[in-house]
């Protein structure tokens, strides 16, 4: 009401001034000149004052024109139809002028506001782009948004169901977060507050930050002037939040790129190291094996003592090469996972064939029987690793089977799994030692006289896992151990 009074006062004063000014010259101006003068006033008022003041000025001008200048003067009566018509047209033009000007003013204001919004968003984006840490982005974003929106900005994070405030531009003033709203906002990934369609009666906005996948975070925007809840367009607020999301996404992408790069670097360094380690191990052992086998070839058949010693040197040195191979393979598979594989479609029969020939080559007296089911499918594996794993299983069977009966190497398909089994006729598995046996460097009996680092099963297990399969150790019902490498028959993805 107070504002209406002010508008009335202002318009009365202005119309009075104009009327007084027109008094001495009204005869010279004529009726159209008078009308023009009052219209001029309405136009000026509607440009510089509010809409309602302009309207009142229009009405008062109409009344003043009628009372002071239209004959009979100093009455509200009109003596001719012509004059009445003139007055009506004047009123209509005055009203139209006021409202058109007001509309134009609103549009100009909106355009300016939109421009300001775009500029704010751009400025925010540019500021955020320079930052390299998530925390810095959040801090700067809060600061800028607090300034631009004249609001208090609070960031809250949900971790394992607990909501905590991580940033507050006015931390000294207490603020109670609506927990229910926060949870709803995070669960639905929707904004809350005026104009959002959710909880419109709130005197703040609560908007989820969607860029950080692992972190659940919402931003609270609490305008200091309650009026801003109506006048600030939601699209502007969303625009600012989008910029924050964008900056965060960019950071995440950059971080991932950096990680991938450093992983690749680490792998290549590691591969170079493994290769040189392998070379350094092998070179002296090659000399030892070669020299011993050469001496063995030169030693007379009847010199059994020397022949035994030389054979032992050859065998032990070869065993060391195998151990080195196992350590290297295990390291590579465990540190690099699937990327360590150089897989191809392999024939099971062929893999078994290689295992048999390598094992026979190594143990001349080996009794090995193969049972390969007919028409097995090709499997997508790293041949070298699978061969190595199977040789380890055969070696293990040999070490722990004192019975001297044949070791059975079998391959068959059961549903979507290929079972590659090595069966011995020894004592079988110690009770409850399965998991223990598979862990690196563990052995069935501590300090046993059997050679090897106990790496054999660990590498088998790792090879099985890296191919998406598993290693199964079970005692056969009729004695002995069955060690099975279970590999999936079809791996669709190659990555």
């Amino acid at each position: 009401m107070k504002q209406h009074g002010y508008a009335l006062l202002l318009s009365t004063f202005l119309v009075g001034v104009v009327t007084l000014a027109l008094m001495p010259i009204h005869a010279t101006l004529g009726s159209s000149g008078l009308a023009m003068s009052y219209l001029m006033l309405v136009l000026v008022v509607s440009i510089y004052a509010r809409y309602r003041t302009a309207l009142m000025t229009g009405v008062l001008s109409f009344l003043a024109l009628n009372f002071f200048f239209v004959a009979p003067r100093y009455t509200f009566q009109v003596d001719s139809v012509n004059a009445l018509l003139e007055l009506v047209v004047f009123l209509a033009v005055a009203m139209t002028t006021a409202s058109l000007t007001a509309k134009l003013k609103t549009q100009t204001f909106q355009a300016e506001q939109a421009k300001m919004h775009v500029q704010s968003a751009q400025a925010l984006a540019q500021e955020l782009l320079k930052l390299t840490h998530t925390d810095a982005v959040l801090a700067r974003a809060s600061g800028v948004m607090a300034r631009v929106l004249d609001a208090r900005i609070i960031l809250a994070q949900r971790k394992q169901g607990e909501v905590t405030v991580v940033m507050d531009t006015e931390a000294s003033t207490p603020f109670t977060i609506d927990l229910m709203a926060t949870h709803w906002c995070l669960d639905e990934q929707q904004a809350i507050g005026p104009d959002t369609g959710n909880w419109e009666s709130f005197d703040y906005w609560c908007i989820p930050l969607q860029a950080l996948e692992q972190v659940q975070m919402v931003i609270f925007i609490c305008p200091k002037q309650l009026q801003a809840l109506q006048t600030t367009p939601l699209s502007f607020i969303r625009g600012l939040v989008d910029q924050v999301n964008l900056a965060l996404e960019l950071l995440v992408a950059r971080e991932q790129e950096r990680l991938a790069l450093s992983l690749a670097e680490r792998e290549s360094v590691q591969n170079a190291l493994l290769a040189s380690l392998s070379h350094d191990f092998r070179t002296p052992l090659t000399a030892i094996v070669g020299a011993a086998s050469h001496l063995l070839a030169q030693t007379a058949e009847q010199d059994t003592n020397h022949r035994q010693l030389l054979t032992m040197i050859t065998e032990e040195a070869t065993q060391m090469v195998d151990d080195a191979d196992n350590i290297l393979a295990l390291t590579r598979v465990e540190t690099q996972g699937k990327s360590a594989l150089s897989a191809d479609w392999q024939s099971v029969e062929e893999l078994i064939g290689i295992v048999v020939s390598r094992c026979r080559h190594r143990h001349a007296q080996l009794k090995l029987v193969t049972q390969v089911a007919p028409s097995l499918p090709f499997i997508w594996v790293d041949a070298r690793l699978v061969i190595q794993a199977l040789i380890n299983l055969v070696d293990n069977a040999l070490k722990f089977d004192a019975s001297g009966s044949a070791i059975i190497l079998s391959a068959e398909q059961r549903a979507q799994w290929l079972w590659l089994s090595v069966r011995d006729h020894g004592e079988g598995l110690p009770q409850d030692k399965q998991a223990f046996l598979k862990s690196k460097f563990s052995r069935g009996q501590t300090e046993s006289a059997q050679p090897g680092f106990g790496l054999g099963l660990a590498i088998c297990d790792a090879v099985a896992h890296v191919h998406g399969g598993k290693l199964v150790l079970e005692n056969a019902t009729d004695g002995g151990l069955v060690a099975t490498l279970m590999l999936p028959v079809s791996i669709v993805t190659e990555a």
Partner: protein
Amino acid sequence: MTRQRILVVEDDQAIRLFIESALKSAGYLVDSCTTVATACAYMQAQRPALLLLDLGLPDADGRTLITHLRSRSDMPILVLSARSQEGDIVSCLDLGADDYLVKPVGVAELLARVRVALRHALVMAQRDQVVSVGELVIDLHKGLVLLAGVPVHLTPKEYALLSILAQAQGQVITQRKLLAQVWGSEFVDYGHYVRVQMGNLRAKLERVAAEPRYILTEPGVGYRLAES
């Protein structure tokens, strides 16, 4: 028969010592170098019957020597490498090396490979020969395959693969070479084609397919027909 001369290129002194000693006691004349550069210089003056080449040499990649030699000579080249260098082995064979040996290597294996390589160098010209291993006889002239005296029927692809292996009996043939010669050069990456046909061949020729005695697989490299 004159004693054949072998050049050993190996930088590790201990390995060189045993190789030289083993080759000498098998009746060969042996010279040795430790770098690619000295090997090239040696080759200017001498023409050994066989080159035994270690891949990890200090001054240059052993492969440069293979390329260099193959441009002007058919001299057999045996490559000595570590097992972890499968890719390198294949590229050496593709460049023209005749065979390879994986460290650690025993004397018996070393001498056997040397013998095979030298024999192939001698009989290079004679193509129409009969190759045999165990009970398997491959008559390359007549295109006949006999197992224990009984003819074996092979498909054209199977025979093509077998004859390539037979012509180089005892030597490894890379999978890519088999694919290029039997299927065509655009198929060199279709390794499973070869594996399927080898499976069929083994089913026809081997007593136990999973324990091959004739067609041996060199994982990651290729195949070889066993020596008698």
